[in-house]
């Protein structure tokens, strides 16, 4: 007799997936000003000026930056926040 039913296995798999860490990724765009992007990182994540500027420069020079990693629900919340500030942002599974 199996220890779990197929349904339970699916639920466990879904739970595992939602527990996986997700990256919040900000993409470079030709419109948003560098100083503005740094301000947004400070406001949304509470980062220091130095951290915000490092991430902003990463976006600028590398075209993208992982600005936060964690559970999916919170990642979605942060993406929504960054979209409201008009930053091009997406999320991806970490690792």
């Amino acid at each position: 007799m199996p220890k779990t039913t197929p349904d339970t296995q699916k639920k466990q798999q879904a739970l595992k997936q939602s527990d996986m860490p997700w990256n919040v990724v900000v993409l470079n765009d030709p419109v948003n000003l560098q100083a503005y992007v740094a301000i947004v990182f400070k406001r949304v994540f509470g980062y220091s000026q130095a951290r915000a500027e490092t991430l902003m420069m990463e976006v600028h020079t590398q075209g993208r930056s992982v600005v936060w990693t964690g559970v999916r629900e919170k990642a979605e919340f942060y993406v929504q926040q960054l979209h409201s500030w008009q930053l091009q942002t997406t999320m991806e599974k970490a690792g």
Partner: protein
Amino acid sequence: MKILPTLEGGLCILPESEVDWDELQLICSDDERPTYLAESLADLMDDDSEWGEYVVPDLEEAFRNQTQFVHAAIKQARQSDDPAIFIRPVEAEQWYGALNQVRLSLQASYDVEELEDLEELNEASDLNDWDLELKGAYFRNRFYLLLQSMLLEFIMNKAE
């Protein structure tokens, strides 16, 4: 047009001609812009996120509030006896957001960033040779960029 910092920590815009007012009113000229921006941001998310259903309406409303706020401020100032636009510190983000929307729209339509490149300008050799619409987009983008830079320098950076 003159743009000056105020003693209260804001900005004052002093349009000097009808063209100046028209330039300002073009910030809010496109009713579809908030929708387009909200949807283009949602395109960055995968379909499973159901972003279009749950997030886009809120984003669209927030973006529309920005343009409506700026539209009302310009309209009110233009009709007043002392036609000056005052941007208070608490209003800076609304203005910045509305300006960002119009610059994103100009970028999408005319690729104005490419025009900013000096080499491009040299290749064009003479601005007078440019298509009138393209030239308008270029100068509007420059003006809105300047206003955004002043909002950052005199208000938003100081609030940090």
